[in-house]
């Protein structure tokens, strides 16, 4: 499965719609994917974990609708700016008061936009946020709760808010048996110390999650820090300075090949 459009274009979902899971005739029984890391993990180390491996990542755009006016007489207008500010803070309270700290949500308002100058009350204010979650249970209820907060805060002040919630990639979930398989194969090929069982998920997101919703499998992080760099300080993925160690290519293909052969029972008896 050679897939375009991972960086936000849902390429994996499109390939599923075009039949990749049944390309060999029957539905595949397992799926495997890797991701190289230019920092965090030294080359030669691999990592994964059972259950949640990566977050779900959604985007929300909130528009607060008021009525513009003169900054000296706000009582004759409906000022959306303090309402937008209150929504930003109320979302942070929502995160801590409505969700289990061990099944958390991250809401980060990365953009807030309203108005043109100091003495004009604008008619609208806009908020844009990224929403990360780590279970499909939470991923499922976040949109409704977030809308309730935004619309409720606006209503409390006599204004309205519209919420445009855009679902991104789902949670990437590993099958525990397939994680065990990967750990065993990595141990057998590269030594037990080459496998690092990750204690927690990463907050990144990945559209291989669509594949893992359909068939069991495992997503494995592959260390690719340059040999002479410190994994704690090397430029990470997406940096213009990110460099990846070619030596990781002596690891990834062998693991993919081994996972397939092992799962299909093609051992040399």
């Amino acid at each position, binding site marked *: *499965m*050679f*897939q*375009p459009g*991972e*960086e936000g*274009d849902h390429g*994996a979902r*499109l*390939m599923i*719609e*075009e039949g*990749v899971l049944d*390309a*060999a005739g*029957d539905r*595949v*029984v*397992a*799926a*495997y*994917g*890797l*991701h*190289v890391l230019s920092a965090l993990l030294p080359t030669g180390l691999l990592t994964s974990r059972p259950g949640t491996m990566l977050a779900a990542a959604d985007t929300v755009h909130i528009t607060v609708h008021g009525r513009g006016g003169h900054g000296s007489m706000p009582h004759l207008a409906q000022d959306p700016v303090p309402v937008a500010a209150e929504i930003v803070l109320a979302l942070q309270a929502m995160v801590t008061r409505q969700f289990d700290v061990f099944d958390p949500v991250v809401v980060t308002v990365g953009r807030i936009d309203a108005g043109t100058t100091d003495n004009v009350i604008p008619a609208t204010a806009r908020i844009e946020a990224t929403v990360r979650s780590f279970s499909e249970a939470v991923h499922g209820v976040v949109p409704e709760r977030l809308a309730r907060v935004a619309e409720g805060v606006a209503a409390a002040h006599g204004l309205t808010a519209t919420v445009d919630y855009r679902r991104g990639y789902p949670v990437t979930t590993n099958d525990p048996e397939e994680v065990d398989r990967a750990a065993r*194969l990595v141990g*057998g*090929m590269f030594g037990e110390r080459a496998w690092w069982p990750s204690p927690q998920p990463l907050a990144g997101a990945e559209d*291989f999650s669509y*594949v893992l919703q359909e*068939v069991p499998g495992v997503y494995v992080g592959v260390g690719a820090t340059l040999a002479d760099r410190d994994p704690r300080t090397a430029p990470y993925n*997406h*940096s*213009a*300075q*990110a*460099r*990846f160690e*070619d*030596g*990781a*290519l*002596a690891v*990834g*293909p*062998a693991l*993919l*090949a*081994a*996972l*397939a*052969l*092992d*799962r*299909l*029972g*093609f*051992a*040399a*008896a």
Partner: protein
Amino acid sequence: MPLDHADLADLRADARAQLPDVAALRHALHRVPETGLHLPRTQALVLEALEPLGLEITTGTGLSSVVAVLRGGRTGPAVLLRGDMDALPVTEDTGEPFSSEHPGTMHACGHDLHVAGLVGAAQQHRRAGPAAAEHRHHGGQAGAGGDLQAPRGCWPRGGTGSPGRWC
């Protein structure tokens, strides 16, 4: 039956032996990064690299994907191996000799390694896997030599370029 220690040692050695070729493919991909769903140059490099392997190839219609089916020497279940192909709208600043030739676009997330690695995995299967005998039967070149009468599910040991031995 799970892979045993010798199987895994052979796969590891084979991966090391093919590393220069896989790295060269990675560098070629790195020079021509493309973003989004339509990656014609990347797709062309993938198709060229897969061509000698004699796989069943189909390409996407709504996106420039490549699906390659490698059949083993027996009927049975299939598994899926995935590599993502797209790059990012980033201006490369690494100083690598194989840096991006497309201004404003860079393989900053390492998907060039994913593509090259997936081709490498297919090559490993073609050389060492159960499909090797089937491929030779149809006139292909499978690398390590072997015997068409080998029992299904067995594959040659000894790594790339060695005569191999049969289970």
